[in-house]
């Protein structure tokens, strides 16, 4: 009996990482999902349908902007910014969600669920559900509901039900657990639109495939504007979907250095961060359906993480990125909350661009490295999302006094009416 296991399928592994550690109830659904995903991936018409949808409903191809002022300011490499902020709903999350939406239509499921941290993925999923006529439930940690109220407002306005999750640390990982609990209960008519390149196979591969549209466009664009491949590419890494999206096309281009930037939070030494691969706090584990490097204690209990950016505040990381890190193909760095606020401020002042707090992590590292390179080199920063949508969070992080006055006055107005 046991010997037949030797020939077993190591499906969904990237080197030592990944797999599908799922409860038995979901086995059949994953079989169906794998079959349908395989079919779509092998069908060029499906990819064309996806590209068409993204160019008519979202804003693809998104521009590659030459940040001339920042390039000059740092006096090193030419800095280019891939503008995922210009997607409909304001972040790269839309790519994955619309792709999975097409898949859901093919599978004939009538309901979608999703987890969300910052709320970007939740808003994108609620948008897709509205467009495709699907019922939609979003799980969001209570702590994130508090931090990201405006996104909750939009999800509800778009017709989704938002369920605050009160278990555990009440953040992204707990929302993922709760989404899985819904899925095992409603598996027959429901698809779980996982928001990043994590979770059980085939999600990492599938989400990376949909997001790879970013890098495919960026490669063409950089050749057009700069004449050759960039020296380095920078992307922030929560679960890793925007990073995998821009990196994938460039992995075979060995001269291009790929840099993932994790949340350094209050500083790696403080323990209040979400740095799984940079630094030495991460260790191998299996949770939420996959094997990767987690922030956990020696018993295997997951730790609390911290970041100013809710979208990076997560204990795990894509098994694909962990493999690329282990192979030395992707380098990992971290940026602290304070560095992030400074980079965001500079980017607004110099370029009139407002990156999301998540994306600003990539800007921090790019700004550190740009001066080391020559003006004949190019670097690309993936601007995974826009920050102006998160005005409450960013104004709070800047501790802006006139914004606080405004909120206090508005609050008084509302409470007088009540």
């Amino acid at each position: 009996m046991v010997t037949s296991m030797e020939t077993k399928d190591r499906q969904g592994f990237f080197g030592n990482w990944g797999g599908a550690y799922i409860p038995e109830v979901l086995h059949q659904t994953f079989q169906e999902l794998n079959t349908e995903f395989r079919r779509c991936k092998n069908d060029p018409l499906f990819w064309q349908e996806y590209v068409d949808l993204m160019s008519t409903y979202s804003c693809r191809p998104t521009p590659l902007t030459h940040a001339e002022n920042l390039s000059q300011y740092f006096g090193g490499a030419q800095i280019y910014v891939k503008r995922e902020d210009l997607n409909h709903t304001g972040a790269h999350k839309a790519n994955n969600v619309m792709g999975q939406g097409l898949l859901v239509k093919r599978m004939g499921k009538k309901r979608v669920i999703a987890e969300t941290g910052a709320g970007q993925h939740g808003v994108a999923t609620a948008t897709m559900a509205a467009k495709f006529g699907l019922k939609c439930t979003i799980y969001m940690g209570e702590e994130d509901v508090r931090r990201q109220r405006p996104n909750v407002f939009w999800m509800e306005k778009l017709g989704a039900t938002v369920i605050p999750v009160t278990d555990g640390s009440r953040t992204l990982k707990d929302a993922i657990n709760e989404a899985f609990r819904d899925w095992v209960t409603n598996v027959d008519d429901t698809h779980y639109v996982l928001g990043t390149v994590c979770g059980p196979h085939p999600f990492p591969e599938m989400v990376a495939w949909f997001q790879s549209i970013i890098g495919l466009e960026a490669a063409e664009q950089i050749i057009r504007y700069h004449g050759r491949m960039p020296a380095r590419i920078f992307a922030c890494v929560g679960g890793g979907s925007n990073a995998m999206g821009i990196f994938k096309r460039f992995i075979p281009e060995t001269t291009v250095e790929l840099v993932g930037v994790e949340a350094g939070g209050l500083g790696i030494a403080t323990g209040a961060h979400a740095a799984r691969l940079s630094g030495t706090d991460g260790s191998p584990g299996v949770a939420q359906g996959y094997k990767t490097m987690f922030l956990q204690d020696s018993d295997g209990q997951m730790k609390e993480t911290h970041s100013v950016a809710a979208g990076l505040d997560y204990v795990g990381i894509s098994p694909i990125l962990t493999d690329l890190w282990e192979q030395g193909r992707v380098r990992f760095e971290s940026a602290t909350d304070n560095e992030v606020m400074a980079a965001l401020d500079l980017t607004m002042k110099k370029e009139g661009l407002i990156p999301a707090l998540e994306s600003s992590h990539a800007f921090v590292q790019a700004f550190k490295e740009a001066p080391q390179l020559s003006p004949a080199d190019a670097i690309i920063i993936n601007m995974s999302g826009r920050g102006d949508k998160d005005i409450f969070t960013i104004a709070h992080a800047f501790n802006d006094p006139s914004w606080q006055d405004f909120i206090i006055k508005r609050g008084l107005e509302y409470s007088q009416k009540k």
Partner: protein
Amino acid sequence: MQLEQQLRDRLKNKDILLMTHIVLGYPSFEINRQVIRQMVANGVDCIEMQIPFSEPMADGPVIVRANQQALKNGTTVAECLIFAAEMAASYDIPFLFMTYYNIIFKYGEKAFLAKAHEHGIKGCIVPDLPPEEAASFLQLAADYQIAPILIFAPTSIDERMRVLASYANGFIYCVARRGVTGTKSVIDQDVADYLKRCRQATALPLAVGFGIQDRADVAALIGLADMAVIGSQTIRLVDEQGPAAVGPFIAGLR
């Protein structure tokens, strides 16, 4: 074979066996001790002891909260192992571990199973470890005579059940319905049909769990399965009425 034989021996003079569930360290090891004493005194046939995990994905609200509270109390894996040894040495019924794979992975599969064996544990339920990911775990479980308890679900097609059964030992844990632990299950014709399919797929004893709460549920399973699993219900009972309520509750189930 050992666990299966123990259960078969007990089935000789009972219509159906009872398995109960404990979350170690919740509300405390001392209460665990009192609860287990009453369970055994009132005829429980098998006890699964859950080593708490921070991400109990397959569990419902009652057990999730118990896991979290146990961890907040500072419960460690090492303490759970010591406690398990004490229980297995004290009572003449089979004790099992139930936990999520990361706990075993972190401890080291070999070290964990060796310890479990040494402490007199008979089986291990790992709801997030399907056989596809379990090659080394299954091999080591066989080496250390720990029965790997595999899970059937209502969504498992016949062919899948046969595959699962080929790796299983001790008994099969049949999840009564889709969903997580805790919510009441109704033992209706659908469940009966499902359990017939389970029976055809394996010669191992069948345990049925998820939402089995009272005497009527247990009675409804007689003839369909070999063991009823009471999980969240005793935890709820201890929360509401304290450990002394467990004995009469268990005694009233059969």
